[in-house]
Each structure stands twice: as C-alpha cells, then as structure tokens.
C-alpha cells in the first residue's frame, strides 16, 4: 500500500491544482496577517476560510481524482494487488498532499513572522482541524464517486454535502434550539455539535482563543465541556469517527464494485 501512496503523492505533487490550493492558503494567511497584524484576529478570519474551503476542495478533489483515475484503477485492479490496498492507498495518497498544502500554506506566514505564539494552542488546533477536515472530506468525495458513476450527479452531491455541513446543518440546529427552547438543551447542543465535523472544528479553535469569553453563556457551557481534556479528547475522537465511517464505507463498497 505504501507504494500506491507513494506514487499517488508523487503524481499529485506535480498537479497544478494542488499548487493553486497551496498558494491560496499562503496568500489568504499572508494577506490576512499583514492587514490585521494580530495573530488572534487573523486566526479567526482564517478559521472561517478553513471551514469553508477545506471541505469544499477536499470533497471536489476526492470526487475528481476518483473519476479521473478510473481507468488507472482498472489497471491497478488487474494487477496482483488487494482491492483494499488500492483504495486505501489512493485515498491516503490524496489526503496527505491536500493536508500538506493546507498545513504549509497556512503556517508559513505565521512561522515567518514568529507570531504564532499569541494563542499557540489555538493555532495548533486550527492546523489539526484542517488536517482532520481534509481527511474527512476526501473520504466523502471518494465515497460519493464510488457510489455514483454519473459524474454530474457526483459533483452535485459533493456540493450538497458541503452545503449541508456548512449551512443547512446549522439551520436545522438553530431550528431545534428554537423549537425546544423550553427544555434544557445543553446536552443536546453538545451532542449535535459532535454530529458535524465543520462545527466541531469551529468550536475547538474558537474556545482556545481569548475571544471565547465573548460567547456568553453558551460559550461558557461549551468551554466547560470542550475546554477540558476529556472534552477535547471526545471531540477529536468524534473527528476520528468522522474519518473512520466514510473510509470504512469506501472499503466496503470498493470490495463489491464492478469496474
């Protein structure tokens, strides 16, 4: 499998689109930093960029890469290789370079200016959640492409998944909070947050910033949970599950798919 990963990474690192993705984060991070000059504020702005762009690009890349590699997958499948090796290798081979582009692109301006120290934990969490989101949504992209041979449908679905995680879920979340406002909702809102990796990333980073004090009662509530080691552990465990389920589904479907 390491060989498949190696060659996928090797192939992708020369891709123009991956370069653009890296430059995008480099520019966003550099520009935001030079405008505000304040690491905390830059991080908040970057966080908003991260939770929108990383899932979108990872899903689309996952879908696109799978569709474009179809004949190559057939070639690999006709070699003495296990199906699981091929699919897992290609998945990791895409998720690693995507994460790397995000990591390097967003951290270089901070490291150069030496100003990542204002909220070091928030910065680390920002990078970590970005990597998690890359792995989660690349798996979603693979899953969508594996399930749908029709490319238009595949791309449509990936946009829909992205919109759901970024916007529609929050709408439903708010609606539930409104509809059941007479009941105690603390546990429910914590549980609901675990159900969306995008929200989870947002909460994890924001709570590590000083501005979390401005979030009022709900901030305090979230801080009580996500501020503790157990809470953080639980949140990252939830993120791991968010990677595990789609990857397991990719393996399950991949084993049964006809090419």
């Amino acid at each position, binding site marked *: 499998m390491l060989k498949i990963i190696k*060659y996928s990474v090797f*192939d992708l690192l020369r891709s123009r689109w991956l370069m653009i993705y890296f430059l995008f984060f480099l520019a966003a991070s550099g520009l935001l930093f030079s405008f505000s000059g304040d690491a905390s504020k830059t991080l908040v702005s970057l966080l908003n960029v991260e939770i929108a762009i990383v899932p979108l690009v990872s899903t689309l890349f996952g879908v696109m890469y799978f569709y474009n*590699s179809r004949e*190559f997958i057939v070639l690999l499948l006709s*070699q*003495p*290789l296990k199906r699981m090796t091929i699919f897992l290798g290609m998945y990791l081979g895409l998720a690693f370079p995507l994460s790397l582009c995000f990591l390097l692109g967003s951290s270089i301006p901070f490291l150069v200016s030496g100003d990542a120290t204002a909220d070091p934990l928030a910065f680390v969490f920002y990078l970590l959640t970005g990597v998690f989101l890359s792995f989660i949504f690349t798996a979603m992209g693979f899953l969508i492409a594996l399930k749908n041979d029709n490319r238009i449908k595949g791309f449509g679905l990936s946009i829909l998944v992205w919109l759901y995680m970024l916007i529609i879920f929050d709408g439903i979340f708010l609606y539930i909070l409104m509809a059941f406002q007479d009941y105690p909702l603390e546990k429910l809102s914590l549980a609901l947050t675990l159900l969306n990796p995008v929200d989870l990333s947002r909460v994890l980073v924001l709570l590590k910033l000083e501005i979390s004090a401005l979030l009022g009662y709900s901030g305090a509530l979230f801080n009580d949970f996500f501020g503790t080691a157990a809470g953080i552990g639980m949140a990252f465990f939830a993120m791991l599950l968010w990677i595990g389920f789609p990857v397991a589904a990719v393996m399950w479907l991949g084993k049964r798919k*006809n090419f």
Partner: protein
Amino acid sequence: MNAAIISIKNLCMSYGKTAVLKDISLDIRPGAIHALLGPNGSGKSTLIKCILGLVIPKSGIITADGIPTDMDWQYRRQMGYMPQIANFPENMKVKELVKMMKDVRNQAAPKEEELIALLKLEESLSKSLKSLSGGTRQKVNALLALMFDAPILIFDEATVGLDPVSRLHFKNYLLQEKAVGKTILLVSHFIQEVEELADDIIFMLEGKIYYQGSLQALKNNNHGDNLEKVIASILDPETPNLKMYA
C-alpha cells in the same frame, strides 16, 4: 488435451436486472490462442473482467491454475491484461509508470527492453503520459501488459488504436508468445486477425456460449470457408452475406 489453465463453472452475472452472463461454463486450455467473439453486448468484456476480478460475479466459480480467483488475488501475478482504453496518471512520465508497475507488482520485467524496442517507445520514455497520442498510449499499455512475461495474456480489443505496422508486430509477437507456451485470450472484432491467430474460438451470444472449439470445426460445421460469412450466418441465417456481424 492438457488440463484447463482457466476453468469457469456456472458463472452468472447481471448488472441490475439485466443478466449479462447466463450460466457460463468454460475450460481454457493452456498454450493456445483463444479468440472470444460475439456481437456488442454479448458479454465478452464482462467475462474477461470476471476472470480478472474487475467484476464480481453473482454466482459461479472461476479457477486459474486450480486456484479459485475469489480466494486469492495473487493469481493475477500469472496474468497480463491489456484493456481497450488506456488512461494513466497524467503527470507521470512513461518510464516512471513502468517503474511503478514493476514496483507494485513486485516482479521483474524480463521483456521490458525487447518490447520498448519493438514498440519503438524509446523516445516516449521521458515524455509525460498526458502528452502522448492515443496510439502511443496504447503501446505503453501493451508494454505494461506484456513486459512481465506472464503465462496468461488477456487482450480486450487491444489493437483498435494501433497503426497497421504496430498491429503486424503485435500479431507476430502473439504468435511468438504462443510458441513458447503462453495462453492467450483475445477479444477482437477484426475477423482477419482472428483467422490468422486463433486456435480456438469462443463465440458468445446474449450472455451464453454459443460455440467453443477449433476454428476449422466451426467453419466445417457451418459449411463455409470464410469466418466472416460463417459468423453472419450464425447470427442471421436469412442474410448469409452480411458484411459485419457487430
């Protein structure tokens, strides 16, 4: 006759509700060229894909060299497959792809040099795959399928994109390979090619095997000396002079 190198028993396959292979049983003897013929949609490619494990059959058993193919993926070590369409990671160079295939198969490629010379691929080796023409890609595809010197070679309409000279080389190469004892399974719509190369014919019609046996016996049984006419008369007895069967 030698024992079968590939043996298929009661193979059924359907895509959704459409049955593509209907209870196929087939033995492929080693050391011969077998041509798989039949009109479009008769299940030829699906049968080949089942043998390679690209398509998972609904029921039935396929054994390669006595090993059930659904139990052990290692059997593909014995096979070289050349599909009709060649598409590779576009940013890679040809020589990198060749190196990669050797690496993932974990096998030496004893025929590499010989085939590169035969297919005149020397100049393309340092080019990236996306810059190659369709025909050159197909040659790369041939190189990948043949260079491991696998004892079973499978071609799915593989000569479609090749120019006449390369096709001639290809045919001669197949005859050479047969002479050293390889088993070759060939899907082709070029009747002339089949007549020149094939020892055995497997004729498929609507997911079933209509005829399996030697080329000569097929001609004799159908009172014809021209394979094209024989096939046309099988498919449509009313119009024995039908030009193309597909």
